[in-house]
């Protein structure tokens, strides 16, 4: 039966995540935006708290959801939806700080979605970052040059990785490398590399437009030896699906981040507009209301679409429906909507919103990355277009 409201059983989780965001993230938002590359110590305590929640079946963050187990009968609202809702709340607090949450990295999401049981147990409690992008390869992740060569029981990795979120702080990094560059995407595998492994060196940390609380690392891999058991999934060369599967899980979460930060901007702008004597009326036609109110209504309508598309993608995952298309739709809509909303909220609130005394200017810097990482706007459009048109990547480039 069609119903698009979140079930009451998640109310407590949402409330807890919201309070954590309000009490732990917001008060430190500006501090770590200004003190880029400083480790937000306060998060250690919050992370410990979240570990407890996760153990008791709660959890909020980008930790990822394990696939597997038999499907229970009937409509399911499960771990994917729960994680998505938690992520929205936390990013209402601060996207950069969520990305800095110990043990909640995108590498953890990858491990959760493709690792075998032994690997899952081995990396339990570890903080895992994700390394895909290279200096010469961004969106075209099938063209990565980092190589992995089997040598006895070990793979030897060589290459360079950039834009590794939480790379400096994480315990380990999930590195994408190719077993055979002549075999294209099918030969790309992901390897878990512990931070202290010889030859795995941190080159530098980036200075960024936004999410400055989150460190973004550049690594060099020179003859880095990792045990063959660190390869996630199957070592067979049989298709891109293995590593790409991660994206079906992580894209709705990035969409959720965009939904969270955009809601923060809308709420703050609503407050400021109300104070300025501009009420928002959902019944009266937008064009008969002040331009600022009409603009706000348009932004909120787009926000609602991003929010519901994200819920849809997570709900499909909970119900074992293939959701690649919906995950990309959610990511595309949420990414572009978040930048549009946050930037326009600064315009609506004028110098109040542009000033560092407000978080609005920060949110409109933070949101930009959400339309870029885990697949840019244009990559999502390509994926959606290929699906709708029934085109391969060689036909529709």
């Amino acid at each position, binding site marked *: 039966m*069609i119903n698009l409201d979140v079930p009451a059983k998640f109310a407590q989780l949402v409330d807890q995540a919201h309070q954590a965001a309000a009490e732990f993230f917001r008060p430190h938002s500006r501090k770590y935006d200004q003190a880029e590359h400083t480790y937000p110590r306060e998060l250690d305590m919050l992370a410990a708290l979240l570990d407890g929640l996760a153990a008791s079946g709660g959890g909020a963050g980008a930790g990822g959801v394990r696939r597997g187990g038999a499907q229970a009968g009937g409509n399911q609202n499960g771990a994917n939806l729960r994680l998505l809702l938690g992520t929205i709340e936390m990013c209402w607090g601060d996207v950069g700080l969520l990305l800095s949450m110990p043990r909640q990295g995108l590498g953890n999401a990858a491990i959760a979605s493709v690792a075998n049981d032994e690997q899952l147990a081995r990396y339990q409690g570890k903080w895992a970052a994700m390394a895909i992008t290279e200096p010469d390869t961004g969106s075209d992740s099938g063209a990565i040059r980092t190589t992995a060569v089997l040598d006895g029981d070990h793979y030897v990795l060589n290459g360079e990785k950039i834009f590794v979120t939480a790379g400096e702080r994480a315990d380990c990094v999930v590195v994408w490398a190719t077993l055979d560059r002549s075999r294209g995407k099918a030969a790309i595998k992901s390897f878990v590399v512990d931070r202290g492994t010889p030859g795995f060196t941190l080159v530098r940390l980036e200075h960024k437009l936004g999410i400055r609380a989150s460190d973004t690392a550049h690594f060099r891999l020179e003859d880095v030896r990792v045990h063959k058991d660190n390869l996630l999934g199957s070592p067979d060369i049989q298709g891109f699906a293995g590593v790409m599967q991660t994206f079906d899980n992580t894209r709705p979460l990035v969409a959720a981040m965009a939904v969270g930060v955009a809601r923060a901007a809308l709420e703050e702008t609503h407050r400021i507009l109300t104070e300025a004597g501009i009420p928002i009326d959902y019944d009266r036609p937008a064009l008969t209301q002040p331009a600022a109110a009409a603009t706000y209504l348009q932004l909120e309508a787009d926000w609602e679409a991003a929010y519901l598309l994200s819920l849809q993608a997570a709900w499909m995952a909970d119900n074992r429906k293939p959701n690649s298309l919906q995950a990309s739709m959610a990511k595309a809509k949420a990414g572009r909507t978040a930048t549009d909303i946050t930037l326009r909220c600064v315009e609506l609130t004028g110098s109040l919103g542009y000033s560092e005394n407000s978080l609005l200017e920060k949110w409109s810097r933070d949101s930009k990355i959400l339309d870029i990482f885990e697949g840019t706007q244009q990559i999502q*459009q*390509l994926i959606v277009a290929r699906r709708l048109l029934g085109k391969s990547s060689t036909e529709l480039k």
Partner: protein
Amino acid sequence: MAGSDQPRRDAMGAALAVLNRLAGTVVLDRLGLRKPVERGVYQATKGGFTAAGAAGRAFTSARKLAAPQRPKPSGDPGLFDLTPTEDQAMIRETVAEFAAERLRPAAVEADARCAAPATVLRTIADMGVTLVGVPEALGGVGDERSAVTNVLVAEAMAQGDMGLAVACLAPSAVSTALVLWGDAEQQATYLPSFVGDNVPAAALVVQEPRALFDPFSLRTKAYRTPSGFVLDGVKSMVPRAAEAELFVVAADVDGRGPALFIVESRSSGVSVESDPGMGLRAAGMGKVRLDQVTVPAAALLGGGKAEVYAECVRLARIGWCALAVGTAQAVLDYVIPYVNNREAFGEPVSHRQGVAFKVADIGIELEGMRLLTYRAAARAEQGKPYAREAGLARRLCAEQGMRIGNDGVQLLGGHGFVKEHPVERWYRDLRAVGLAEGIVLV
């Protein structure tokens, strides 16, 4: 700006203006250069009909009801769910089939004639689509609120043709209004006709012909008299205006705010006038003039409560969203094979990102429109507050629906501009979504 600084008309200008009128009408007509269809359309627009309201039947209450019958709110299912019930899936499938086989093929001619074919209207009545919203005690089949079912029906119907969908759904807007807000007497008097063999043409009339129209601030007035009310004003975008036997009309009561009135078309002072628009032509749109129309006190619907009226405006907007979703789906389904088959520069045009990304954006925004519409309808039928959700669905469907209509024509290029393809009609129809009030109801 245009209008503020027009050149003065001198002797030559006046002569040109006269010549232009001649060229436009008499000369060309006399030489028989106009195609018959063009002349027909011209007539419908210019001369059209201006007449008293349709003679109509005498509505009388056959049997008394002890109390008004209302559908119960549907239960709160608790979980997030995008799967329709089995009944809903079956109804949707039936309507979708009807839309594909009966509405789509009839759309071109209905658009030109500014009228829906009688056979189509009869079939939709026979299918009993109106029965879904009417409780069993009143001869219908729906004892639960069914806003979501109504949305699925409107969406599926509009996928065939939006104008014909509006013509088909217009009477159920009135019956739904009577079910939701009618008192026992009003229900007993009017509802039996809507569940019988000969469903009357009827219209929910809110719109008025002026810029920045706001349904909460009406120019049509209702003055209280000792025996009832006198209505006065002009309403627009009235579907099947010429044949409608019954109207539910929005009017401002004594300057205190809007309310709904039941007005029979044969009432003295009611006249109708054809007023076709750029689209939705199959719906036979017209204006209704209310010239000092006297109605009894019992004509006031829902006790004149502000909340009833607000609900009517919101439920109508959700209906328009559903129509937009169905039409936008038709656009997407049409452009996909077109851009895959159309070749330019040695390959299908869909192999170009400039084309493909437009298709992707149609898909993305359409899905968003659908989800917002479903959410608003689901909250409405569960008895939850839904003003926000209905308002946002309206904004998104108005904005993105028109954009999809525009892109549909653009993707076919010059071929989209000619009537060989339906995208130009969808472009015209989708313009209505951002401005229409009333007319349909979920």
